[in-house]
């Protein structure tokens, strides 16, 4: 009766340890903690005084000890593992092997390493094998009771070793996954960088063709980015609109250089030739798989007007992609604020007057208002960087004179937008 009670207690102690082990392996994110706790649980279940757990590092083909109990502070050794070792260990499939003189001779792994590694400090070697792959080994010393391991003990060890092996395997899979994700991230970042460099190179090529508008595409990209940021777009969308700005004039590559570089206002025929460039740009950009949406469409429609008098498709209002509306405004703003062969740049007062006149005709108020706010914020010193002012040159804007102009324009446009939306409602 007393023996039965003792057996029952032993079983309860073992079950509790198995439950704790399962919980530990499934629920702990800290690998080191999981391994240390697992070895404690295994040793504590059968009161084994010495134990060590090594993880198999596939890349370095070595067993590395992570946790050791009862042998001083640490086991510094690593055990190199070759193909023979792997075969020998995986064939045991998580079944323990007694480290006795005969077994040492019968097991290839023990035989290979007995000279370098003192296995006699331990009684049992348990390879941790998951789906035919070695994940680690456990070495166990004697039981505190002095009894040899019984069949039930070995079954308990086998069950716990399987759990621990799965824990190690999960850790390895997670590490592999993280490494691959990091590799993919690096590759993706590299590709994005190449893509951006290529886009910039194209922008420079476009601008080089037009000797009077050098840096135009780059500036349109930056103005577009500033407007989109002011409109609350996401970083990804902002990157996309900047690319659209850089590439909006790519269709000019198929327009004759003489037409682009004419030092006078061109005639209707040449003008129509020049006006082919948005559609040509669309053709050039469409076959490319851009990492951002609608780049070809924004290039095609950057000369559309909200009143429907633009080209090439004569789209109106909401038919025009919002990105194209932004690029259109950025493009026009840069054209107005840089010197051209046939005319000097316009004053900011003129630009404001142009915005007032053309909002609702050429430009969409939904992009003009944010752009005005972006300029205003820079002039009022609300932004850390003064990107617009830098592009326009030091003396172009005069905050004292221009802030009231902008504020009036914003107030007017907002009030018109409000009336329009009330009218629509």
């Amino acid at each position, binding site marked *: 009766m007393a023996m039965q009670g*003792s057996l029952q*207690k*032993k079983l309860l*102690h073992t079950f*509790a*340890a198995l439950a*704790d082990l399962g919980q530990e392996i499934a629920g702990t994110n800290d690998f080191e*903690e999981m391994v*240390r*706790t697992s*070895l*404690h*649980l*295994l*040793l*504590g*279940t*059968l*009161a084994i*005084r010495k134990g060590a757990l090594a993880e198999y590092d596939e890349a370095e083909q070595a067993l590395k000890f992570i946790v050791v*109990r*009862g042998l001083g502070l640490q086991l510094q050794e690593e055990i190199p593992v070759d193909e023979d070792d792997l075969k020998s260990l995986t064939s045991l499939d998580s079944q323990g092997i007694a480290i006795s003189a005969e077994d040492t001779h019968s097991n290839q792994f023990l035989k290979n390493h007995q000279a370098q590694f003192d296995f006699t400090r331990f009684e049992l070697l348990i390879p941790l094998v998951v789906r035919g792959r070695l994940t680690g080994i456990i070495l166990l010393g004697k*039981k*505190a*009771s*002095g*009894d040899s391991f019984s069949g039930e003990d070995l079954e308990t060890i086998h069950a716990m070793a399987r759990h621990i092996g799965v824990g190690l395997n999960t850790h390895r899979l997670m590490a592999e996954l993280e490494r691959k994700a990091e590799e993919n991230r690096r590759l993706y970042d590299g590709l994005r960088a190449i893509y951006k460099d290529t886009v910039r190179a194209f922008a420079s090529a476009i601008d080089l063709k037009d000797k009077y508008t050098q840096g135009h595409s780059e500036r349109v990209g930056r103005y577009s980015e500033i407007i989109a940021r002011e409109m609350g777009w996401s970083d990804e969308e902002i990157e996309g609109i900047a690319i659209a700005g850089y590439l909006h004039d790519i269709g000019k590559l198929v327009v004759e250089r003489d037409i682009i570089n004419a030092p006078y206002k061109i005639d209707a025929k040449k003008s129509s030739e020049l006006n082919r460039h948005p559609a040509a740009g669309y053709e050039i950009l469409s076959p490319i798989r851009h990492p951002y949406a609608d780049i070809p469409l924004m290039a095609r429609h950057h000369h559309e007007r909200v009143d429907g008098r633009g080209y090439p498709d004569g789209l109106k209002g909401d038919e025009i992609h919002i990105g194209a509306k932004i690029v259109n405004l950025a493009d026009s703003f840069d054209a107005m604020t840089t010197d051209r062969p046939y005319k000097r740049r316009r004053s900011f007062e003129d630009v404001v007057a142009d915005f007032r006149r053309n909002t609702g005709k050429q430009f969409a108020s939904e992009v003009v208002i944010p752009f005005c706010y972006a300029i205003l914020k820079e002039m009022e010193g609300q932004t850390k960087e003064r990107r617009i002012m830098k592009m326009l040159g030091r003396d172009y804007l005069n905050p004292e004179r221009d802030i009231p102009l902008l504020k009036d324009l914003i107030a007017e446009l907002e009030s018109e937008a409000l009336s329009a939306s009330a009218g629509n409602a």
Partner: protein
Amino acid sequence: MAEMLTGVTVRSRVVGGAAVVYASDYLNKLSGERIERECRLQLEAGRRALVVNFRDTELVNSIGVSILMGIIDAAESVGAQLVFSDMSAQTVELFEMLGLTRFVALAKTEAEALATLSGFAAASQGSGH
């Protein structure tokens, strides 16, 4: 009689030359390693009489057993005397079942443990800090 707090959670005190470490509730988790560390610190400080008091420990699980075996090892390695006191009946049964009572003396109370160790405590008195 000196009483001190070592680290955040492990309570210990020195009575005469003997160190008393309170196992508390932390024994059954990985944080129980702090108890083993505290015992090792006491041994490194020269104490050769050590009591681990289980008065606040209801149950000892496998992690606790493993940590206690670590304490037994540490005491054995420097020839220190170790007594576990105030253990519940269940824990005593578990220790007997696992064969741990071969390596450590058990006492019903801390006072009894200290009395058992008084000879060793006197020998190690003053050798610590």
